[in-house]
């Protein structure tokens, strides 16, 4: 893939809904947000979804940089 890319990860029910666990996405560094990437995935509303960038939980308006790992996490049900 040419140009800046993100690694996008999906877990559990999100992964099964999308049919994939990990993909590379082209984007605009410093301009694109986690919310914008989510909207491109067409997986429903972002409410209730947690977001991690490079293994840190962040808000949906987090700006993304080249090489970031962006993970979308459905509501937690552990314990």
């Amino acid at each position: 893939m040419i140009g800046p890319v993100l690694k996008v990860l999906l877990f559990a029910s999100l992964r099964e809904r999308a049919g994939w666990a990990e993909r590379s996405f082209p984007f605009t560094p410093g301009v694109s947000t986690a919310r914008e990437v989510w909207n491109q995935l067409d997986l429903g509303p972002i409410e209730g979804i947690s977001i991690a960038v490079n293994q840190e939980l962040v808000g949906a308006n987090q700006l993304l940089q080249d090489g970031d790992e962006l993970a979308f996490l459905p509501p937690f049900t552990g314990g």
Partner: protein
Amino acid sequence: MTGCRVEVCPDPFDPWQQLALWCGDAAAAAIFIGRVRPTTMDGRPLEALELEHFPGLCERQITAMAQRLQQEHQAGPILVLHRVGKLAPGEPIVLVAVQADRRGAAQRCSAALLEQLKHQAPFWKREWCAGQGTWLAANTPL
């Protein structure tokens, strides 16, 4: 302040054996062991419960919450073990143990840590029943 041991376990563990290895000499200890129920959330017989986690972030989140609560409650050593993988009914899923100088600190810290673990650590459960898996959308009530 003493340590927090946090482990996500892909293999079964015996909570009593783990406690025997961990145990210290604090005046109070609160222990919680969670096991897989024999029925699904909607009351059907459960074949298995599958647990998935986000490796790395999950362990760091639990360690950070344990350290924060340990300080807040002036507690001593903390042990957290949490299973992932496919579990049979009756198998232990989670062990939370907290030592402290007083019962109040141990019990409050343990209860708070378990609730945070359920709602703030990236684990997901899928119930298997009649050969079909269903991801749970929400946690069990307190």
